[in-house]
Every structure is written in structure tokens, then in C-alpha cells.
């Protein structure tokens, strides 16, 4: 018995000894220490999505801390498997990932390719749960949390209509698209991956009492044989040029810029919004790759990235590019406060409340995968 007690005491002493320095340090002391080590590392390696607006922000980090940012843009469907392949061959080349949530969650996270995220946070303004809509974890039921989504994306409603050609009486909600006159007469973004079209369908799910009824609608939708393109720019062009007067899933910064620059009377109608107003998704996320080679620089970067000032800059960059993006930080301002309110309201009232967002929750991802399967069955 005494030997067991001795072992337990020794174990407790070891834990206290190991954690004491961290416990004793104030956040500022820890920050200063990590910053000094980060400057010694001299660089942080970042993989980011192909958002053009992000690059000036990365340069600002370089100027602020004198730590070089080695950034590589790329889409997650090619970058994430590559990172995983490197890791599994013993090469740990990346520090921070600024990528959309899907592939990071579906590929890297289950394969153990990420570091638990929250231990990297130091700055009090970042670690304060009250500073974030949905708390630090953003309602995502993950423990530990590997992927921190810092933005809520207003995803629109999926359907876009040229109101100069099509009246509200003709198309104003999903069931209208099943009318015989629309057979082969509207266009969609090719449904082979989680994107606006699949999200829109997933948002439509609560309108049905059962999953089977929802699937029946989705099948009927694809049986209308909408014309598809895997280039969202082309679908948006079809709408703006008048080849099609109704499209689904073409939303994005390009369509927004067309609406603005060309003064097209394009509307995104929906009878009833089931996913929030507008539906919410996590357009972007930040995570730390497994065994980051520049751990301290990565720590400095993620904290800096999640500060109020930088989150405002990130939102500005996204909004300038036409995205309906809002920071999860409550104190981060927004160029369009009305939009911000709408997106936050959608986030707080969305039907996946408590389960995360359409692009982060397991349920949302499963619904989108099912849409892709149904589309494949229909020959897409």
C-alpha cells in the first residue's frame, strides 16, 4: 500500500514539476519567451487557400515580427493529401494551414496530421471564450480541437435568378425548380464535391419530415437534368450573359463581382431560410500541422492571426473579394454591419445549432456527401 502511495506521490510531483514553469508564467512572459524563440527560428511555413487578399496580411506579419513567412497557395484537395504523404514519410515541412475546413477535417485530422490547436493559444484576447461567437470551439464538438474556424461565411441560399427574365411567381423557392418548364433549363455547379450546391441542399433538409422525403426531392431535382459545369466562373457567366436565367450553386466572389460591375438584376430568393439567414458555413479555418518545424513561430502566427486587428483585416480582404465573410470574433468590426448581424443571427439560429456549422459538423458533412452520391446516381 505504501509503495502505491509512494508511486502516486512521485507521479503527482512529476506532473507539478513538469507543469510548474508554465503555470508560473504569465501569458505575457510566455509570449515573450516564445517570441524570442520564434525569432530565432526565423520563419513560419504556411499553406493557404488561393485567396489573393491573404498575401498582404502575411506580409504584415513579416513586418511586425521580423519572422519570414514562407507561404504556398493551393487548393486543399491537392495540398492536404500531399502534406499527409510528406508526414507519413517522416517529413514535417509545414507549420500552419489556412485552408477551408473540409479536407483538413476529412483527411488530415483522422490521419493524425494535426496538432491539438488550443494549447497554441497564449494571448488573453484570443483565449477568452467570451470573445468568440460560439465560444472558442465554435460549437464544434471536438475534443481535442484540431481545426479552429475563425470565420463564418454567409453562404447565400444556393439559387440565383435573373429577375429581368424570371419573375418571383415563376421561381422563388426550391419546389419551383421541379416544374416541367424548368427541365434542362437551369444550370448548376457540378455536384462532385462539397460546395455551395451541396450546402444549399443540406440547408434544405429541415423542410422535410424525414430524410427519405428530402432524398426524394434531391432525386427529383437532378431528374430535371440541370446543365452543369465544374467551373463556378462559367456557371456565373451563364447567368450574367443570359444563357441560363436560373442557376444553383454558382455563388461566390466572382458572381458577386459580376453583379456589382455589370449591374445585373440577379437575386438570390428563397421562400424560407432553413439554415440561418443567410445559411452559415465555415469558409476558412486555421490549424497547426503535426510536428511543425517552427513551432514557436507557428504559435506566434496563430495568436497574431486571431487578434481583433488581424481578423478585421482578413474579413476586409474577403469582403473586398465579394465573400459574405464574418469573423467569429465578437469585437471584430465589419465593413457591412448589417450583413454581419445577419450572418451572426444565422449562426446562432441555424438548424445545426449545437452541432457546429454546415461545413464543420458531422451531420452537415454527411448530408453533403449524400447529395454527391445522389447526383452520381443521376449521371453527374
Amino acid at each position: 500500500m505504501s509503495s502505491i502511495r509512494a508511486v502516486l506521490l512521485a507521479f503527482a510531483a512529476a506532473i507539478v514539476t513538469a507543469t510548474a514553469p508554465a503555470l508560473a508564467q504569465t501569458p505575457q512572459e510566455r509570449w515573450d519567451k516564445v517570441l524570442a524563440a520564434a525569432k530565432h527560428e526565423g520563419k513560419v511555413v504556411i499553406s493557404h487557400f488561393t485567396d489573393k487578399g491573404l498575401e498582404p496580411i502575411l506580409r504584415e506579419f513579416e513586418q511586425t515580427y521580423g519572422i519570414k513567412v514562407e507561404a504556398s497557395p493551393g487548393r486543399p484537395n491537392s495540398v492536404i493529401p500531399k502534406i499527409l504523404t510528406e508526414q507519413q514519410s517522416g517529413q514535417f515541412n509545414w507549420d500552419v494551414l489556412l485552408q477551408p475546413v473540409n479536407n483538413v477535417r476529412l483527411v488530415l485530422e483522422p490521419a493524425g496530421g494535426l496538432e491539438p490547436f488550443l494549447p497554441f493559444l497564449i494571448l488573453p484576447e484570443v483565449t477568452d471564450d467570451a470573445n468568440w461567437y460560439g465560444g472558442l470551439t465554435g460549437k464544434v464538438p471536438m475534443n481535442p480541437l484540431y481545426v479552429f474556424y475563425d470565420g463564418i461565411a454567409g453562404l447565400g441560399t444556393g439559387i440565383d435568378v435573373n429577375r429581368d427574365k424570371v419573375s418571383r411567381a415563376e421561381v422563388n423557392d426550391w419546389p419551383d425548380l421541379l416544374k416541367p418548364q424548368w427541365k434542362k433549363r437551369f444550370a448548376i455547379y457540378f455536384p462532385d464535391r462539397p460546395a455551395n450546391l451541396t450546402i444549399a441542399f443540406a440547408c434544405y433538409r429541415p423542410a422535410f419530415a424525414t430524410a427519405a422525403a428530402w432524398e426524394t426531392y434531391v432525386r427529383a431535382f437532378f431528374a430535371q437534368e440541370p446543365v452543369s459545369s465544374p467551373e463556378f466562373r462559367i456557371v456565373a457567366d451563364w447567368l450574367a450573359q443570359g444563357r441560363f436565367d436560373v442557376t444553383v450553386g454558382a455563388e461566390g466572389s466572382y458572381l458577386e463581382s459580376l453583379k456589382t460591375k455589370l449591374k445585373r438584376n440577379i437575386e438570390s430568393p428563397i421562400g424560407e431560410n432553413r439554415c440561418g439567414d443567410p445559411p452559415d458555413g465555415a469558409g476558412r479555418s486555421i490549424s497547426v500541422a503535426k510536428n511543425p518545424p517552427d513551432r514557436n513561430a507557428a504559435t506566434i502566427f496563430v495568436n497574431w492571426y486571431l487578434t481583433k486587428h488581424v481578423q478585421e483585416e482578413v474579413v476586409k480582404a474577403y469582403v473586398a473579394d465579394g465573400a459574405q465573410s464574418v469573423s467569429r470574433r465578437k469585437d471584430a468590426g465589419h465593413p457591412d454591419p448589417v450583413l454581419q448581424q445577419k450572418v451572426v443571427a444565422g449562426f446562432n439560429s441555424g438548424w445545426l445549432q449545437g452541432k457546429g456549422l454546415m461545413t464543420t459538423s458531422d451531420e452537415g458533412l454527411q448530408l453533403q456527401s449524400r447529395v454527391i452520391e445522389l447526383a452520381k446516381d443521376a449521371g453527374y
Partner: protein
Amino acid sequence: MASIGARDAEIAFRPLSRRGLDVRWWLFVLTLAGVGFLVLYPLGLLVFASFEVGPYGRETAFGFGNWSAALTEPGLRSAIVNTVTLTATRQGIGLVVAIVLAWLLARTNLPGRNWLEFGFWVSFFLPTLPVLLGWIFLLDGHLGLINRFLAWLGWSGPPPFEIYSWWGIVFVHLVTNTISVKVMLLTPAFRNLDPSLVEASQVAGASPFGILRHIVLPMLAPTILVVLLLGTLRSLEAFEVEFILGPPVRIDVYSTAIYRHVFGSPPDYGPAFALGLIVFMIMVPFVLAQQMVAGRRSRTSIGGKFAVRLVDLGRWRWLVFAAFLSLLAAMTALPVFFMVLGSFMEVFGYFDVPGGVFTAEHWRTVLRDPVFLGSLWDTLSIAAATAIASMVLFPALAYLIVRTRYRGRGLLDFLTWIPTTVPGIIIGLALLWMFLRTPFLRPVYGTETGLVLAFLIAGMALGIQLTKAGIMQISLELEEAARAGGATWLATMRRVVVPLVAPTVVAVGVLQFVAATRAVSTAVLLSSHATQTLAVFQLKYIESGDLEAASVVGVVVLMLSTSVAFAARIFGLRLGLGGR
């Protein structure tokens, strides 16, 4: 007519082999082993991975699940039918057109033929996506400029052109790459044709097309076969055009099925590898058949009595010139015009932007991008290194295959085909694994050296087959005469072989340079944050839908490629342009 067959090859290397198991034999064995490793190891990794069933990167089981998933994939049958019919159509049309064009360029008195040939090179340099969008802009069934122009002229029926169609896909392939690359490869072969039989036919009163059909084509059959095989392999892996033009009319092809597996969310590599290996298994017999035919048929050659008399086109001369010019305008001038125009448009393809149609903002965006200059430098150094290495290594390998009698030379030839028989996206992944899983290759992963090596492997078949054809056209009598005159083997190479094969070698170098500047899928997988080519830099604009900025990068890449081709010409190396 001097000719080279298996017998000649034996003669060619006899002086060397007399020394028995000499250093050269060991060098050959080492070369064979090196090439074998670089092509068979990635292939082996693919085969192994095709039997690993389970989510990528996690625990997998060994089984046939990927193969059964690939073979039972919905729509696979129609994808195969579409692939075969599209490939056969465009290769058939492309080959006939290219043979006629190459013959006109090389063997007739067509005005300005040297510069006309250069036009096909420029056409080949053009990046596919901006050019494709230019053609959509012109030939869209509803809003295409040409359809609108015809309607304005009074056309009242349904629009005559629709790019989103089976024939639209064929057309775009023909005018982007299919014809131009064939003309590039065939013209030097036509030019090096021994003129004696042609002249005899002319004396006998044969018509120009009779000479082409009965004399020229049979003599060039092995070269044509290589060009056709390379074209077919490229067709089977091409997906950019089908990916954009196919879905609206539900045309799926084999390569897009592979693409969807690879770039799915999450990726599903197993079935993609199975599909890629099926292409490999189908193409291997064709490669072997080509080797057999090439081994049996005699080749035309550059002999000691070489003097070309061009066929006089007579009164057709200027008409053919006008037709040529129209074709080149469609294949080169029009796409270049639209690419440059697009780079200056506020929104590509829109002439009704209230705030102004044209802007220089996209150029400012790209040129001010801090990554741009680094990418430009990386591209230049990687492409130049690839070109130089290919101009040294490929001729050496080709010479080993053509002019020695080592037993393994057929195997070496076969091995060089392998990287081309697997679709590009798949071979890119295999190379990624090869670099990461091979300790002595790991240090070059993500570096310029690694990219150069990958581009050399990917371009091996084209480069070596072209150089082989060039060497095989050189009559042995020239080498033998030099040796009989007391020249050493090295002196013979330096004074006889190298000068004669130089235009082909330079052409290979330029092709490899361009391929390195344009390669996307391999470059994305094997580049790092520290090494980024312009093609990868351009990708961020393409993927974010900023085609205007992507066009700017496209114009820069085009200027780069064209400058290199011009430089090669100015330095007198001629790229096979200069008629003899």
C-alpha cells in the same frame, strides 16, 4: 537509298564491342538500371497502392476493392466509349492534316514556310485554359461572338456553332495542341527525307500527292507511328478541355473519372490508380507493336548525297499559302489576341461593363505580387536546367538504343515509354511517393533539382523518341566514312553525328523547356513553398476565378517560351526550321 535496320545498328557499334566487357558495357548496364529504377519504382508504388483499400493516409487492408470500384464505376462504359471515339477522331483528323501540313512545309516551295512552321510552335506554347475560354467566348452556342455575328448578317436558323458538344471538344483539341505538336514532330522528319526516290518519282511524272502517298508516307511510317502513339497517349490523359466542355452535355471521359477520384473530397486514390494502370496495360501492347514495326522497317536517312529539290506547287502556291495562313490565324493569332485582350479586360469576355471595359489593373496586380519575380526566376532556372539536361541525356539514351547492339537496348527503349503510358496526374503522385520514400532522393524533394528530375522523367518518351528518329535518319555511311578516314569515335560524334542531329536535339530542348513552364499537376505536387514555377503561381488565379490575372501570367509564360524558341533560331540552330 541508304537505310538503317537492325543489321546497320550492329555494324555501327562493332568497333566498340570488340573490346569485350569494357567500361562502356558497364555504363550501359548502369544506365539501364538507373532508367529502370526511375520508371519502374514509381510504377511499382502505384501497383501496390492500387491494392491498398481504405481511406488515404489511414490504416488500409490489402484487397481488390479499388479495382472492383473502378471497374464498376457508374458511367465508366460511356466514358470509355467517349474517350475512344474522341481520341480516334481527333488523332485521325489531326494526323492527316499534320502530314499534309508537314509535307507542305518541308518539301514544297510554299512561301514563308520557315515562319509558318514557327507559328505551330507558338500555338503549342499557348496555355490551354485561357485559350479555351477564348474559344468559348467565340463559339458559345447562345452568346458566342461568331454566332452573334452570323445572326447580325441575317442567319435565322439555330446557331451553327456550339462549343459545348462532342465536335466542340474535338475542334478545341485540334486547334490547340493536336495538330501543332504533330506538325512540329513530323516536319523535321519530312525535311530529312532522302530525296532520291522522290526525285525518281518526279522524273517518272508522279503528282505531288502521288509522291506523298506512295513514296513519302511508307518511308516515314515508323516516325508517323511514334507521333500517333504519343498523340494517342496524350489524348487518353487529356482532361482540361473535356472537364470544361463535357459536363454541360453530359460527356464524360476516362481521364475526368480519374481526376474526380484524385481531387475528390476526400481523395479516393485507390480507384484512380486502378484506372490509371488499366490505361498502362492497354497501351503496353501498342508500345511493343510500335517497337516491332520500328525495328523491321527501314528508315529514310540523311546520306552523303543529300540535296533537296522542293516540289513546285505551281499555281496552287499562293492559294495553299492563304489556307495555311488562315489555319495559323485560328490556331495562333486568334488565341494570342484573346489572351492578351483578356488580360486587359475588366471582366474577361464582357464588353458592357459600365465602369469601363479595359484596365491595366490585372497587370499591376500580377507584376506587384511579391511572389511573381521569384516564380519567374524559378521557372527560368528549372526550365533551362530541364532543357539542357534533356539535350544531353536524351540523345545519349537514344544513341544507346539506336546505335548499339546491347541485348538490353530494346528494354531500355521500352522503359522510356512507361512514364507516358500512365496518366499525368497519376504519375505525379507516384513521383511524389518515390521522392519521399527513397532515402537518397528525399533531399531533392521540393527543390529545383527534384522538379527537373520529375520533368525529365515525364518528358522522357517524347524526347527520346524524337531524338531516336533524328539519329535513325542519319546514314551509317557518314559515320563509317569518318571512321575510315581515321577519325576517332569521339571525333565522328563531334563532327558528323552531333551537327546532323543538332536541330532535333534543340527542338527537344525547347519542347522540354516549354513543358517545364507549363506543367501543373506534377509541379504542384513536387514544388515547395521555396520553389514555385509560374504555372503553380498562375494556379492561384485560375482557382480563385481570376482568369484576367491568369491570362497575364499566361502571356508572360508565352513570351518566355517564344523568346527561347526565337533565341534558338537566332543562334542558327534552326529548330528544324531552315529548309535545306
